[in-house]
């Protein structure tokens, strides 16, 4: 309820400032017009198609980032030399914003899908690696001893005990990776070509149509919010509860 009142007052305030007519339309759009454009765009398919395009890229990039991330973390967690060399590299690469990779990607993969997906992968993978390898390294040693005691060894010990025991960390990594991939995708789409949300946003700017720009921004925000809060948060909470990581 509080949130609805808050949201309502923001829209009223926004409309009020718009009515004062300080800035021209193309710099400060009206919230009602933005809403109109948003509904219109969703109805006639422009936005929904763009959203589907973006989500498709996101899903491809995200899947690659997660799978590759898990594989690399397994190598890092089991091989000390790799951890000391490549592990530190991951740490420094993680602080590089993923858009920075776009110029290289454009050179390597040409303008288009592949380079955008590459940037998405790079956006999410470091977080995935960091979280998963921390998870694997921090498995309760008693569980490992218990597994050995019950006759598990080598690969069995890894797949049946160490990996499941690190699932809470892996899920956190997946949630963060999703968020980072989403940001990377938007940045890459704005700078590159195609039919995603980012491109519509840029197209709106080129047309001087702020209604489009702001409505696409809203869509981007909502998509991120919904997946993060409704999907990942829920899964994460459930897993944390089951693994006994929450004070009940």
């Amino acid at each position, binding site marked *: 309820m509080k949130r609805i009142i808050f949201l309502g007052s923001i829209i009223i305030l926004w409309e009020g400032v718009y009515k004062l007519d300080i800035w021209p339309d193309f710099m400060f759009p009206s919230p009602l017009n933005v809403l109109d454009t948003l509904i219109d765009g969703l109805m006639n398919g422009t936005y929904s198609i763009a959203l589907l395009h973006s989500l498709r890229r996101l899903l491809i990039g995200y899947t690659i980032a997660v799978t590759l991330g898990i594989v690399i973390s397994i190598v890092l967690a089991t091989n000390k030399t790799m951890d000391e060399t490549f592990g530190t590299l991951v740490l420094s690469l993680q602080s590089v914003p993923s858009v920075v990779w776009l110029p290289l990607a454009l050179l390597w993969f040409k303008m288009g899908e592949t380079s955008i997906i590459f940037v998405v992968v790079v956006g999410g993978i470091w977080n995935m690696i960091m979280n998963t390898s921390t998870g694997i390294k921090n498995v*309760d040693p*008693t*569980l490992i*001893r*218990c597994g*050995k*005691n*019950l*006759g*598990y060894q080598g690969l069995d010990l890894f797949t049946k*005990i160490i990996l*499941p*025991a690190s*699932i809470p960390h892996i899920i956190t990594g997946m949630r963060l990776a999703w968020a980072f991939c989403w940001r990377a995708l938007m940045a890459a789409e704005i700078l590159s070509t195609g039919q995603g949300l980012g491109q519509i946003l840029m197209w709106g700017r080129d047309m001087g149509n702020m209604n489009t720009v702001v409505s696409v921004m809203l869509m981007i925000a909502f998509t991120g919010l919904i997946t993060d809060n409704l999907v990942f948060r829920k899964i994460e909470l459930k897993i944390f*509860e*089951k*693994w*006994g990581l929450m004070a*009940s």
Partner: protein
Amino acid sequence: MIKINNLNKAYGKINVLQDINLHIKESEFVSFIGPSGCGKSTLINIIAGLDKATSGKVLVDEKEINGTHTDRIMVFQNAALFPWLDVYGNVAFGLKNICKDPNEIRDKVEEVLRKVHLSKFKHHYPHQLSGGMKQRVSIARSIVMDPKILLMDEPFSALDEQTRMLLHNELQEIWMETGKTILFVTHNIREAVKLSDRVIIMGIRPGCIVDDIAIDMAHPRQSTDSNLFYKEELIFRKLKVEIEKVAKEELGNEYNFEKNHLSWEHNNTMGGGI
């Protein structure tokens, strides 16, 4: 059945266990008691094969042990259940390693769950169980493997007194029924005296066996039995020396286990307050 010959264990330069020699007969219930840091947990870990001795041998049925084996199963202090498996899955987890027939696995698991009174909680996950129930699952997971030797590392120390008493009786029943050899590490003298045939008192720095006391009384025992109190007192007196040693080391030489019984203060002598 278990023979330990001249066993030594050192971490770096610190001797944790020195010259341990011990024979344990089949179906014997043996408790290890001693001050913290005396290496009793290390000893049981070495017998389990989870830790390696620096020198000396552990023989089980005349064969030297090498690593873990499913005939020596450990019950850990904090139950160490797998959170992603339900009670049934946890109990069946180790069994799947030594038994391939699914029907047999099911029958065995159901039977052992009945034995520890957890049949109703088969599909519960560890986070839904109380501490006592978790430890029951842990015990079930161990005895379902039908090991020759059951190793217990302070299994009840994290439980409240009532739950512990219940579990004592259950463990006693299980032991009398199955006749397993049980090695039981504990801090609690009463627990040790009530449950075991033999109590091994360990000393500290370096960890060694100080005394080996037989509790030759019939099972099952009631905790109100006055003979138990007599044995408790006997063990406490021997253990006191070792506990005092630790306390002196930690708190300085002036520490004395037994204080002067008379109250004595300079200002409070007879007539001093006049």
